[in-house]
């Protein structure tokens, strides 16, 4: 045996220290997002999927505890929601999909493998538009959540309430180029998920979890291009955290490269944790590239088919999505700012659309009806937008009959509706001082009716009628009634 083999002088790699001021750096960011679906039951059993603040191990059964002999039966709704989410992200849906086993050991992984999708996920090749920059989505696949390890006094307790809760994993291509863009991507994803009502997508509660993978493309002025080693960042629990972690990591990688000159290769991907208190990432695992999960098709679940017809049926259940709403609002000549703000949340946008509907009703209800009665064509010159705005601004003080009357008056004579309302006493008086005065008058003038009221509270109706008469119809009847009742107590 030649011992000298081991004595060959070891050549150290040359340290490349760069202080190249003109060096151009471009962050490369991909996001893996896990979304917990809010289905009633878990992914593969009938247990309740609710696990937030639930007594430990109360939502469990042989299946989600991974007991011997137990078998998974896929939740149809969860699969359909995954497809729905895929469609909302512009994905194509695989006609035949199947589940696979991802084998690894972890105490809260009941079966020793996670049921997920690898080769044939439900949804592939989608995209999300972030301010005109198209971010490609590789896939949206279905899987199950694991249990939870709870560390107490130096020992670890296992809670399987979360075991088997349906998760959709949405994997982007590494197309994002800044922490801000990543944040916008997540905001938009969250918006879409909430619009289609498949999850609360709450990052703080853990129903939406995000793992950024970051590295940096470095171009020197000599034209050389290198990539820094990939780092996957775990345990980021807020949107701000995601941004901060990405920003920290970008800077760290550039600094690291400047000091050691190590570029990305197939074996130096690392996993880093996020420490929100110290505002920095830290090394968790090295050589992530070599992890081997021994995937193979899940023999307990036959392949799942979504025919083109079924996919179209699911597509029909999609509501109008934020992007479509923004386009629509802009076409109503709203500003970019307003359109975006209105579309941000489905509750907000539906309030706006309701208001829009009211205006439509006003126009169609009051003017169209009148026109139809006279069998005449609408004269657009007679529509005064400012008048409409005036009517809306005082809507709460006007009865619906008054609103119709004002609208019609504006159209027919061009009269300012507010002036008209004032002149004709159409404003309802809700001012309690004024109403009290009217009420006192009524009480004084009607002793008999007061007696009746004492015997039968329903007799208040007559008194309210008198109040309306005294106020010449200007009183808000509901407020008037309340004041009468108060005075007669």
């Amino acid at each position, binding site marked *: 045996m030649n011992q000298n083999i081991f004595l060959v002088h070891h050549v150290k790699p040359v340290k490349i220290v760069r202080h190249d001021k003109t060096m151009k750096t471009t962050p490369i960011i991909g996001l893996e997002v896990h979304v917990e679906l809010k289905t009633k039951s878990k992914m593969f059993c009938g247990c309740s999927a609710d696990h937030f603040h639930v007594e430990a191990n109360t939502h469990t059964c*042989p*299946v989600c505890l*991974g*007991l*011997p*002999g*137990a*078998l*998974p*039966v*896929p939740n149809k709704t969860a699969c359909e929601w995954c497809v729905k989410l895929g469609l909302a992200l512009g994905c194509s849906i695989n006609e035949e999909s199947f589940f696979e*086993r991802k*084998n690894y*050991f972890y*105490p809260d992984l*009941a*079966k*020793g*493998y996670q049921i997920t999708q690898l080769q044939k996920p439900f949804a592939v090749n989608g995209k999300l538009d972030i301010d005109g920059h198209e971010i490609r989505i590789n896939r949206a696949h279905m899987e199950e959540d694991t249990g939870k390890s709870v560390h107490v006094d130096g020992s670890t307790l*296992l809670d399987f309430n979360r075991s088997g809760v349906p998760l959709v994993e949405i994997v982007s291509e590494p197309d994002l180029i800044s922490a801000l863009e990543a944040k916008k991507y997540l905001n938009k994803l969250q918006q879409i998920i909430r619009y289609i009502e498949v999850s609360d997508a709450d990052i703080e509660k853990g129903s939406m979890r995000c793992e950024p993978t970051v590295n940096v493309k470095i171009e020197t002025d000599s034209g050389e291009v290198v990539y820094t080693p990939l780092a996957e960042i775990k345990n980021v629990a807020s949107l701000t955290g995601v941004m901060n972690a990405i920003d920290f990591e970008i800077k760290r990688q550039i600094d690291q490269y400047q000091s050691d000159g190590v570029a990305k290769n197939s074996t130096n991907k690392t996993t880093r944790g996020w420490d929100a208190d110290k505002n920095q990432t830290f090394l968790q695992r090295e050589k992530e590239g070599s992890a*081997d999960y*021994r*995937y*193979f098709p899940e*023999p*307990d*679940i*036959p392949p799942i088919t979504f025919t083109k017809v079924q996919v179209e049926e699911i597509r029909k259940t999609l509501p109008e999505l934020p992007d479509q709403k923004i386009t629509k609002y802009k076409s109503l000549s709203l500003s970019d700012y307003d359109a975006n703000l209105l579309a941000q949340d489905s509750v907000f946008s539906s309030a706006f659309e309701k208001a829009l509907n009211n205006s439509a009703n006003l126009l169609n209800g009051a003017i169209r009806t009148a026109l139809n009665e006279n069998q005449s064509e609408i004269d657009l010159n007679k529509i005064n937008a400012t008048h409409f705005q005036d009517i809306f601004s005082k809507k709460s003080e006007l009865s619906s009959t008054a609103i119709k009357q004002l609208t019609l008056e504006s159209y027919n004579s061009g009269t300012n509706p507010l002036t008209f309302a004032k002149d004709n006493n159409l404003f309802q008086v809700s001012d309690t001082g004024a109403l009290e005065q009217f009420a006192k008058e009524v009480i004084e003038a009607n002793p008999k009716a007061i007696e009746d009221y004492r015997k039968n509270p329903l007799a208040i109706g007559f008194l309210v009628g008198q109040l309306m008469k005294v106020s010449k119809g200007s009183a808000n009847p509901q407020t008037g009634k309340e004041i009468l009742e108060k005075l007669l107590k």
Partner: protein
Amino acid sequence: MTDLNKLTLKEAREGLLSKKFTAVELTQSCLDRIKSLDKKLNSFVTVTGEDALKQAQSVDINLPLGGIPIAVKDNYLTKDIRTTASSRVLDNYLAQYDATTIKKLKNAGAIIIGKTNLDAWAHGSSTETSDYGPTLNPWNMEHLPGGSSGGSAAAVAADETIISVGSETAGSIRQPASWCGVVGFKPTYGRVSRYGVIAMKSSTDSPGPICKTVDDAANLLEIMSGSDPFDATSIDEPPWKKPELRQNLKGLKIGLPLSYFPPQTQPEVKEAILGAVETLKKLGAEIIELSDVLDPKYSIAVYTILQRSEVSSNLARFDGIRYGHDRSFFGTEAKRRIMLGTYSLSAGYYDAYYLKAQKVRTLICQDFDNQFKKVDAIIGPVSPTTALKIGASEGQSMFGEIQDMLVEPSSIAGLPGISIPCAFDKIGLPIGLQIMAPQKREDLVYQIAKLFEDNTDYHLERPKL
């Protein structure tokens, strides 16, 4: 009355309903037989005894299996009766729920008298790898009963029970039935729910009956079968029903594959099958020699790869955190399979092993499809030999695969099949005939087997114990 334990299911039902004896007497006679015999035979891992008798006292005998003692392979989860899969890892494991089949059996009034021995985790074809010692063959205690359902087959052959259930992944019902001279009916994959049966190779595991006659097995299968909302791979059909009996086999084409007589075939086995061919011919069947059936040796490789792969994943849950015992309690065979399976699924090897095996599996399925265009059913020996001697599996890590090579192809293809006694060798060990049919055609298997049995006496022979 004596020897109630020797009755068939049919006879026991008649006796109970005509009040010739009670369910307690019937159960007691089986328990007595176990007591006198099982220290040596070792068919049972656990005997329920008092609990079974208590149950027999109050059972409604009008139920389909009311008061009938049954032995259950110890890989079926039974609530409140320990379930070990014959592995010390589960030495003191009490299941929290009943397997679907167990529920059905209980609802049908069956009395579970005990849990039967198997190769640990059902890994084998000898019952020799059980952590609770080997089961012996009732026909000759120097020989093996086969496996992995060796305990169930031996218990039936030795009249320790009236009926039993086993499970087959690739031969584990038919091969021990053949070596023990009883009837083992392996249904189509998915016909009987796998829920609550400890998984071995999930993609072919098929629970099924092991009984004294073809009718008994068919009656038991009727009760075990039917779609199960807890098993996504179960066939979405109502429970299987026995078909009308045929007068003869006229118009049926039965295939005899020449490749099912490999060189190591014992001459008496070949003779026995050829004898069975004559019987079937007399019954009117047309026997067609099949010269182009894929050599069953390919199934050994396919089965080995796929089975090890699935086993390595299925046994991962026994990680030492739950179930009482840690992984050091796994026997050599289980460890060997876990390692081989882990290897064949590993990155860089997956394509060469698992994926290729799946492709060959498809070829095997296609081969059966083609053969069944020519014939209605296929027959052959269950095993190339009669029961081998105790110790034969030692040091033979491929023992099971080689012993089971003639039942592996149909298992891999998910076909229904049966093993029925069709002769004895010169030292008196039974020989089994297997009958296979296309998926979901248990009716054909039953009709042929039943007519064969009605016209022969092999099933009436009993081991002299």
